[in-house]
């Protein structure tokens, strides 16, 4: 660290806390300390020089040197007592004494030490500011000291000069130089203190401006998010209404054609009806995925019996399973009683897994099992959807949850469809604090395991919802 910054640190360390708070007081205290720390170095040059040219006057020089060195006591006194103003006035008094003492012994009212008096009002301004009161007090101090000096000199002053005129000239030069250096030092330090304070203030202003900008950006982003959510909600309605018309009326016409026994019309209408359902399912998936991405998907927790829940699911999917020659088995452990979570989302997740299982299995078995596990130190209900179908190769498993971009032709040929079911199921699991794992062997079958906490965890944060990592992981409670 440079000498400069070391002194700065030291000075700031010595300033008592009470003075640090106010900007102006801080500046003044810094000037006070700087002056008292470095002043004596310059000041003591004079008694030193005098000692060299006038070795006889030990006494007088001793007092002078003592008074100058006494300035080093002031920082200590300030740190210990904190009486800043009092110490400033005492310091000024000490300085006046030192100057006039020197004048008394060397030259009287034409002493070469008199220029040092110039530093007195300057120091007073630095230490105490330029209020009327300060000016009055300091001028009074100077006047009183001056009067005392004149009286003392007239009464007790030496008529014979201690040193020759030439010597006095030398003193004069040194005195003026040291005063000039001292004053310059003070001025430079003052300028630096002001600069660094201005720098600091400019930095603070910049930070405040940045903070304001960030706030504005956040508000804008929130508004954009809200606009997006509104758009989604509107689109959702606009898309679903005509789709419901297609699905509903084709169903109606199917029922009519059924009773009127028109096989060709039945086939045609069936196609329209299936396509409509297919489209609705894809639209729902896209809208749900967008909603989750926009962070606008809420969670609706309620308590319900797992047994009823699972049998409802079985009823819904049983027929589809049987159409492909599959057996559909359901089992619920007796100690799985109720669960507290978002029922709709859980139903959606399991529906997606079950329909996947059915779709990729022919003349096999699809099973849905629910059991209770003490995982993660708490109660978990594990739903397992297993099938004896085609299976999924290990290279395709990791990209099933996300990564639509990595799906190549081979994938599409193998699986077809929009493939939104698993990504959506995965994200829904996250939202309700559940985990989803897939295990599969080609030609043997697939198992999907959903672990749901029996009691709902606190709502996940936005960052959890937005996280796109491929591997599902348990949410921290």
């Amino acid at each position: 660290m440079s000498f400069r910054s070391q002194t700065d640190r030291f000075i700031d360390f010595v300033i008592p806390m009470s003075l640090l708070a106010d900007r102006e007081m801080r500046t003044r205290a810094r000037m006070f300390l700087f002056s008292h720390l470095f002043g004596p170095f310059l000041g003591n040059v004079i008694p030193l020089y005098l000692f060299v040219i006038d070795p006889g006057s030990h006494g007088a020089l001793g007092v002078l040197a003592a008074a100058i060195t006494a300035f080093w006591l002031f920082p200590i006194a300030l740190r210990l007592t904190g009486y800043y103003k009092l110490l400033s006035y005492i310091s000024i008094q000490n300085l006046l004494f030192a100057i006039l003492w020197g004048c008394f012994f060397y030259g009287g009212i034409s002493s070469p030490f008199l220029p040092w008096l110039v530093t007195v009002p300057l120091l007073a301004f630095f230490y105490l500011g330029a209020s009327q009161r300060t000016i009055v007090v300091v001028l009074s101090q100077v006047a009183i000291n001056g009067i005392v000096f004149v009286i003392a000199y007239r009464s007790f002053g030496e008529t014979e000069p201690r040193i020759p005129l030439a010597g006095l000239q030398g003193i004069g030069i040194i005195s003026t130089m040291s005063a000039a250096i001292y004053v310059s030092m003070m001025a430079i330090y003052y300028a630096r203190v002001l600069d660094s304070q201005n720098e600091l203030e400019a930095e603070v202003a910049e930070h405040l401006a940045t903070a304001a900008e960030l706030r504005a950006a956040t508000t804008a982003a929130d508004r954009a998010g809200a606009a997006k959510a509104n758009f989604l909600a509107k689109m959702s309605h606009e898309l679903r209404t005509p789709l419901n018309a297609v699905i509903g009326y084709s169903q109606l016409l199917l029922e009519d054609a059924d009773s009127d026994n028109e096989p060709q019309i039945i086939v045609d209408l069936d196609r329209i009806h299936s396509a409509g359902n297919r489209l609705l399912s894809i639209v729902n998936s896209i809208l749900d995925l967008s909603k989750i991405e926009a962070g606008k998907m809420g969670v609706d927790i309620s308590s319900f019996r797992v047994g009823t829940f699972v049998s409802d699911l079985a009823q819904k999917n049983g027929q589809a399973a049987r159409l492909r020659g599959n057996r559909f088995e359901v089992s619920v452990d007796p100690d799985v009683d109720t669960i507290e979570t978002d029922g709709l989302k859980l139903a959606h997740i399991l529906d997606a897994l079950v329909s996947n299982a059915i779709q990729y299995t022919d003349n096999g078995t699809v099973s849905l099992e629910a059991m209770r596990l003490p995982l993660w130190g708490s109660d978990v209900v594990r739903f397992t959807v297993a099938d004896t179908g085609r299976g999924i190769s290990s290279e395709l498993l990791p990209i099933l949850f996300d990564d639509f971009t990595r799906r190549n032709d081979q994938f599409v040929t193998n699986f077809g469809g929009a493939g939104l079911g698993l990504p959506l199921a995965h994200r829904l699991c996250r939202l309700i604090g559940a985990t989803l794992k897939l295990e599969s062997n080609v030609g043997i079958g697939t198992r999907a395991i959903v672990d749901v906490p029996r009691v709902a965890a606190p709502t996940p944060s936005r960052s959890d919802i937005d996280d796109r990592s491929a591997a599902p992981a348990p949410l921290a409670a």
Partner: protein
Amino acid sequence: MTKGHILLVEDNEMNRDMLMRRLRKAGYEVSCAVDGPSGVVAALSLRPDLILMDVALGEMDGWQATLLIKANSKSAHVPVIALTAHALESDRLRSLEVGCSEFDTKPVDLPRLLRKIELCLAPAAASPLSKDH
């Protein structure tokens, strides 16, 4: 000879139209109301044999309308089947709370719905879902 008079309370025009036509084809006389308040009024004035109440109706939802119908002695005896888009257990419980005799989900599975309607319209003694709930 109709199998009975059904009051259908449903705010969505297409759903109303489709369900009405299917019920008529199945042999029922069907009247419609487009929201909760007019549904309550219709229940009192038309005295239907059964009410199909869509739950998501608008300002006054189906549950509230059912409560009002069941609160009035003139219409309290009419069985109400709640129709809802979701199959939550909480919906089931709520429909029992407000006095519904049955509960079904949308999109409508017509054979299932017709079965439930028949059960509700059966003579009170034989029906397992009497007002004693």
